[in-house]
Protein backbone atom coordinates (compact mmCIF):
# COMPACT_ATOMS: atom_id res chain seq x y z
CA UNK A 1 0.00 0.00 0.00
CA UNK A 2 1.53 3.36 -0.96
CA UNK A 3 2.28 5.51 2.07
CA UNK A 4 -0.12 8.20 0.82
CA UNK A 5 -3.01 5.70 1.15
CA UNK A 6 -2.21 4.57 4.69
CA UNK A 7 -4.91 5.00 7.36
CA UNK A 8 -4.41 8.19 9.33
CA UNK A 9 -3.87 6.28 12.58
CA UNK A 10 -0.98 4.38 10.99
CA UNK A 11 0.60 7.61 9.79
CA UNK A 12 0.26 9.18 13.23
CA UNK A 13 1.64 6.04 14.88
CA UNK A 14 4.68 6.16 12.63
CA UNK A 15 5.27 9.83 13.49
CA UNK A 16 5.09 9.04 17.20
CA UNK A 17 7.40 6.07 16.71
CA UNK A 18 9.91 8.39 15.02
CA UNK A 19 9.79 10.60 18.11
CA UNK A 20 10.27 7.60 20.42
CA UNK A 21 13.38 6.66 18.45
CA UNK A 22 15.09 9.77 19.85
CA UNK A 23 15.92 7.75 22.97
CA UNK A 24 18.35 5.72 20.84
CA UNK A 25 21.95 6.91 20.43
CA UNK A 26 22.30 9.43 17.62
CA UNK A 27 24.71 7.35 15.55
CA UNK A 28 22.48 4.30 15.68
CA UNK A 29 19.41 6.41 14.91
CA UNK A 30 21.08 7.93 11.88
CA UNK A 31 22.02 4.53 10.52
CA UNK A 32 18.90 2.54 11.33
CA UNK A 33 16.20 4.97 12.47
CA UNK A 34 14.57 5.37 9.07
CA UNK A 35 14.70 1.61 8.46
CA UNK A 36 13.14 0.90 11.87
CA UNK A 37 10.39 3.44 11.21
CA UNK A 38 9.75 1.93 7.80
CA UNK A 39 9.45 -1.56 9.30
CA UNK A 40 7.23 -0.26 12.10
CA UNK A 41 4.93 1.44 9.61
CA UNK A 42 4.58 -1.84 7.71
CA UNK A 43 3.85 -3.67 10.96
CA UNK A 44 1.28 -1.00 11.89
CA UNK A 45 -0.43 -1.23 8.57
CA UNK A 46 -0.58 -5.01 8.84
CA UNK A 47 -1.76 -5.04 12.48
CA UNK A 48 -4.40 -2.39 11.85
CA UNK A 49 -5.61 -4.15 8.73
CA UNK A 50 -5.98 -7.46 10.57
CA UNK A 51 -7.14 -6.47 14.06
CA UNK A 52 -7.97 -2.78 13.94
CA UNK A 53 -7.15 -0.50 16.86
CA UNK A 54 -6.74 -3.45 19.24
CA UNK A 55 -4.02 -4.93 17.02
CA UNK A 56 -2.35 -1.57 16.86
CA UNK A 57 -2.41 -1.27 20.65
CA UNK A 58 -0.76 -4.67 21.07
CA UNK A 59 1.85 -3.73 18.53
CA UNK A 60 2.59 -0.49 20.37
CA UNK A 61 3.24 -2.32 23.65
CA UNK A 62 5.70 -4.63 21.93
CA UNK A 63 7.27 -1.75 20.02
CA UNK A 64 7.88 0.34 23.15
CA UNK A 65 9.56 -2.58 24.91
CA UNK A 66 11.58 -3.28 21.78
CA UNK A 67 12.76 0.31 21.36
CA UNK A 68 13.54 0.55 25.08
CA UNK A 69 15.69 -2.58 24.97
CA UNK A 70 17.37 -1.43 21.77
CA UNK A 71 18.14 2.02 23.17
CA UNK A 72 19.52 0.57 26.40
CA UNK A 73 21.67 -1.94 24.53
CA UNK A 74 23.00 0.62 22.08
CA UNK A 75 23.74 3.16 24.83
CA UNK A 76 25.66 0.46 26.70
CA UNK A 77 27.55 -0.42 23.53
CA UNK A 78 28.35 3.27 22.97
CA UNK A 79 29.59 3.58 26.54
CA UNK A 80 31.78 0.50 26.14
CA UNK A 81 33.13 1.79 22.83
CA UNK A 82 33.72 5.21 24.38
CA UNK A 83 35.52 3.66 27.34
CA UNK A 84 37.65 1.53 25.02
CA UNK A 85 38.44 4.65 23.01
CA UNK A 86 39.33 6.53 26.19
CA UNK A 87 41.59 3.71 27.32
CA UNK A 88 43.29 3.57 23.92
CA UNK A 89 43.79 7.35 24.04
CA UNK A 90 45.20 7.14 27.55
CA UNK A 91 47.57 4.37 26.51
CA UNK A 92 48.74 6.39 23.52
CA UNK A 93 49.22 9.46 25.70
CA UNK A 94 51.18 7.41 28.24
CA UNK A 95 53.44 6.08 25.49
CA UNK A 96 54.02 9.58 24.12
CA UNK A 97 54.68 11.10 27.55
CA UNK A 98 56.87 8.19 28.60
CA UNK A 99 58.83 8.26 25.36
CA UNK A 100 59.36 12.01 25.56
CA UNK A 101 60.43 11.77 29.21
CA UNK A 102 62.86 9.00 28.33
CA UNK A 103 64.41 11.06 25.54
CA UNK A 104 64.65 14.20 27.68
CA UNK A 105 66.10 12.40 30.69
CA UNK A 106 68.64 10.46 28.66
CA UNK A 107 72.21 11.35 29.72
CA UNK A 108 74.26 13.11 27.00
CA UNK A 109 76.94 10.41 27.08
CA UNK A 110 74.55 7.86 25.66
CA UNK A 111 73.63 10.00 22.67
CA UNK A 112 76.09 12.88 22.41
CA UNK A 113 75.84 13.43 18.70
CA UNK A 114 73.18 14.93 16.50
CA UNK A 115 71.02 12.60 14.47
CA UNK A 116 73.07 13.19 11.33
CA UNK A 117 76.58 13.80 12.65
CA UNK A 118 79.13 15.57 10.57
CA UNK A 119 82.85 15.57 11.07
CA UNK A 120 85.33 18.06 9.80
CA UNK A 121 89.02 18.49 10.36
CA UNK A 122 90.41 21.48 12.16
CA UNK A 123 93.97 22.60 12.70
CA UNK A 124 95.95 20.69 10.16
CA UNK A 125 93.27 20.33 7.62
CA UNK A 126 92.57 16.94 6.24
CA UNK A 127 90.30 17.71 3.29
CA UNK A 128 89.24 14.15 2.79
CA UNK A 129 87.70 14.09 6.23
CA UNK A 130 85.00 16.68 5.79
CA UNK A 131 82.26 15.77 5.46
CA UNK A 132 82.61 12.08 5.95
CA UNK A 133 80.38 9.25 4.91
CA UNK A 134 79.28 6.42 6.98
CA UNK A 135 82.08 3.92 7.35
CA UNK A 136 84.92 5.67 5.61
CA UNK A 137 88.66 5.58 6.26
CA UNK A 138 90.86 8.61 6.73
CA UNK A 139 94.44 9.22 7.55
CA UNK A 140 95.04 11.55 10.47
CA UNK A 141 98.28 12.81 11.92
CA UNK A 142 99.30 13.23 15.49
CA UNK A 143 97.81 16.25 17.17
CA UNK A 144 95.17 16.67 14.53
CA UNK A 145 91.84 17.49 15.99
CA UNK A 146 88.52 16.36 14.72
CA UNK A 147 85.39 18.21 15.64
CA UNK A 148 82.11 16.55 15.92
CA UNK A 149 79.99 19.52 14.94
CA UNK A 150 77.70 20.70 17.63
CA UNK A 151 79.38 18.65 20.26
CA UNK A 152 82.96 18.13 21.18
CA UNK A 153 86.50 17.82 19.98
CA UNK A 154 88.36 14.60 19.68
CA UNK A 155 92.12 14.80 19.60
CA UNK A 156 94.11 12.13 17.86
CA UNK A 157 96.70 11.00 20.33
CA UNK A 158 98.33 8.36 18.21
CA UNK A 159 102.01 8.94 17.60
CA UNK A 160 102.79 9.54 13.97
CA UNK A 161 100.45 9.07 11.13
CA UNK A 162 97.79 6.43 11.44
CA UNK A 163 94.71 5.35 9.66
CA UNK A 164 91.44 5.70 11.45
CA UNK A 165 88.17 4.26 10.43
CA UNK A 166 85.35 6.71 10.96
CA UNK A 167 82.14 4.82 11.48
CA UNK A 168 78.62 5.81 12.20
CA UNK A 169 75.30 4.12 12.55
CA UNK A 170 73.51 7.39 11.89
CA UNK A 171 73.54 8.42 15.52
CA UNK A 172 76.92 7.51 16.99
CA UNK A 173 80.38 8.21 15.69
CA UNK A 174 83.45 6.19 16.49
CA UNK A 175 87.05 6.63 15.45
CA UNK A 176 88.90 3.36 15.43
CA UNK A 177 92.55 2.71 14.73
CA UNK A 178 92.70 1.02 11.37
CA UNK A 179 95.28 -1.29 9.79
Amino acid at each position, binding site marked *: MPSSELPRIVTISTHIYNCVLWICPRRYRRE*YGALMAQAFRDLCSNAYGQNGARGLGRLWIRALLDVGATAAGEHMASLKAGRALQMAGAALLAVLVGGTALLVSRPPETNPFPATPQVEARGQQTPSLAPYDASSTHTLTTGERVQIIGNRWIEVEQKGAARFEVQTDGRFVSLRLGG
Partner: protein
Amino acid sequence: MNHARAEFGDMLPLTPAVFQILLVLAGGERHGYAIMKEVEANTGGQMQLGPGTLYRSIKRMLADGLIEESDERPDPALDDERRRYYRLTALGRRVGTAEAERLAGLVRLAQAKRLLHGPAPIPSTGGV
Protein backbone atom coordinates in the same frame (compact mmCIF):
# COMPACT_ATOMS: atom_id res chain seq x y z
CA MET B 1 31.33 -29.25 16.82
CA ASN B 2 34.76 -28.66 18.33
CA HIS B 3 36.03 -27.96 14.84
CA ALA B 4 33.26 -25.40 14.35
CA ARG B 5 34.10 -23.79 17.67
CA ALA B 6 37.74 -23.57 16.68
CA GLU B 7 36.85 -22.09 13.31
CA PHE B 8 34.24 -19.57 14.39
CA GLY B 9 35.56 -18.75 17.84
CA ASP B 10 33.11 -16.99 20.08
CA MET B 11 30.46 -16.51 17.36
CA LEU B 12 28.74 -19.70 18.53
CA PRO B 13 26.22 -20.17 19.93
CA LEU B 14 24.23 -17.65 17.94
CA THR B 15 21.39 -15.77 19.55
CA PRO B 16 17.96 -17.05 18.50
CA ALA B 17 17.29 -13.83 16.58
CA VAL B 18 20.56 -14.03 14.65
CA PHE B 19 20.05 -17.70 13.81
CA GLN B 20 16.50 -17.07 12.65
CA ILE B 21 17.67 -14.22 10.42
CA LEU B 22 20.38 -16.49 8.98
CA LEU B 23 17.75 -19.14 8.29
CA VAL B 24 15.56 -16.63 6.45
CA LEU B 25 18.43 -15.24 4.40
CA ALA B 26 19.54 -18.78 3.50
CA GLY B 27 16.48 -18.71 1.26
CA GLY B 28 17.61 -15.59 -0.59
CA GLU B 29 17.96 -11.88 -0.02
CA ARG B 30 15.25 -10.07 1.92
CA HIS B 31 14.52 -6.61 3.27
CA GLY B 32 13.89 -5.94 6.96
CA TYR B 33 10.11 -6.24 7.03
CA ALA B 34 10.19 -9.43 4.96
CA ILE B 35 12.70 -10.92 7.42
CA MET B 36 10.40 -10.09 10.34
CA LYS B 37 7.38 -11.64 8.70
CA GLU B 38 9.24 -14.78 7.67
CA VAL B 39 10.74 -15.29 11.13
CA GLU B 40 7.25 -15.01 12.57
CA ALA B 41 5.93 -17.53 10.07
CA ASN B 42 8.86 -19.94 10.53
CA THR B 43 8.38 -20.02 14.29
CA GLY B 44 4.62 -20.28 14.19
CA GLY B 45 4.33 -16.83 15.73
CA GLN B 46 6.50 -17.72 18.73
CA MET B 47 9.18 -15.25 17.75
CA GLN B 48 8.11 -11.79 16.67
CA LEU B 49 11.14 -9.62 16.02
CA GLY B 50 10.60 -5.94 16.67
CA PRO B 51 12.29 -3.41 14.40
CA GLY B 52 14.83 -2.62 17.13
CA THR B 53 15.82 -6.23 17.73
CA LEU B 54 15.95 -6.86 14.00
CA TYR B 55 18.23 -3.97 13.15
CA ARG B 56 20.46 -4.44 16.21
CA SER B 57 20.98 -8.03 15.08
CA ILE B 58 21.55 -6.89 11.50
CA LYS B 59 24.08 -4.33 12.66
CA ARG B 60 26.03 -7.00 14.55
CA MET B 61 25.79 -9.48 11.69
CA LEU B 62 27.06 -6.89 9.21
CA ALA B 63 29.97 -6.15 11.54
CA ASP B 64 30.75 -9.86 11.88
CA GLY B 65 30.57 -10.36 8.12
CA LEU B 66 27.69 -12.85 8.32
CA ILE B 67 25.49 -10.83 5.98
CA GLU B 68 25.93 -7.98 3.54
CA GLU B 69 23.74 -5.32 2.03
CA SER B 70 22.81 -5.97 -1.57
CA ASP B 71 20.97 -2.97 -2.93
CA GLU B 72 17.96 -0.76 -2.37
CA ARG B 73 14.92 -1.34 -4.49
CA PRO B 74 11.15 -1.46 -4.06
CA ASP B 75 9.33 -4.63 -3.10
CA PRO B 76 6.60 -4.96 -5.73
CA ALA B 77 4.49 -6.98 -3.28
CA LEU B 78 4.33 -4.07 -0.83
CA ASP B 79 4.65 -0.63 -2.36
CA ASP B 80 6.93 1.48 -4.50
CA GLU B 81 9.16 2.57 -1.63
CA ARG B 82 12.83 1.64 -1.86
CA ARG B 83 13.97 -0.93 0.70
CA ARG B 84 17.39 -2.11 1.77
CA TYR B 85 17.99 -5.77 1.02
CA TYR B 86 20.36 -8.12 2.86
CA ARG B 87 21.93 -11.38 1.83
CA LEU B 88 24.02 -14.12 3.37
CA THR B 89 27.80 -14.12 2.92
CA ALA B 90 29.84 -17.31 2.53
CA LEU B 91 30.95 -16.92 6.13
CA GLY B 92 27.34 -16.44 7.23
CA ARG B 93 26.36 -19.68 5.50
CA ARG B 94 29.20 -21.59 7.19
CA VAL B 95 28.35 -20.14 10.60
CA GLY B 96 24.67 -20.98 10.07
CA THR B 97 25.62 -24.55 9.17
CA ALA B 98 27.87 -24.83 12.23
CA GLU B 99 25.08 -23.56 14.48
CA ALA B 100 22.58 -25.98 12.94
CA GLU B 101 25.02 -28.85 13.52
CA ARG B 102 25.51 -27.70 17.09
CA LEU B 103 21.75 -27.71 17.67
CA ALA B 104 21.41 -31.10 15.96
CA GLY B 105 24.02 -32.44 18.35
CA LEU B 106 21.95 -31.19 21.26
CA VAL B 107 18.87 -32.90 19.84
CA ARG B 108 20.81 -36.18 19.51
CA LEU B 109 21.94 -35.80 23.10
CA ALA B 110 18.37 -35.17 24.25
CA GLN B 111 17.28 -38.31 22.40
CA ALA B 112 20.05 -40.33 24.01
CA LYS B 113 18.93 -39.07 27.41
CA ARG B 114 15.34 -39.97 26.52
CA LEU B 115 14.23 -36.37 26.86
CA LEU B 116 13.14 -36.48 23.24
CA HIS B 117 11.63 -39.50 21.56
CA GLY B 118 12.33 -40.61 18.03
CA PRO B 119 14.34 -38.91 15.35
CA ALA B 120 14.22 -35.16 15.14
CA PRO B 121 11.20 -34.10 13.08
CA ILE B 122 11.99 -32.45 9.80
CA PRO B 123 10.26 -29.08 9.72
CA SER B 124 8.03 -28.36 6.77
CA THR B 125 9.52 -25.83 4.40
CA GLY B 126 6.14 -24.90 3.03
CA GLY B 127 7.06 -26.00 -0.49
CA VAL B 128 5.96 -29.03 -2.49
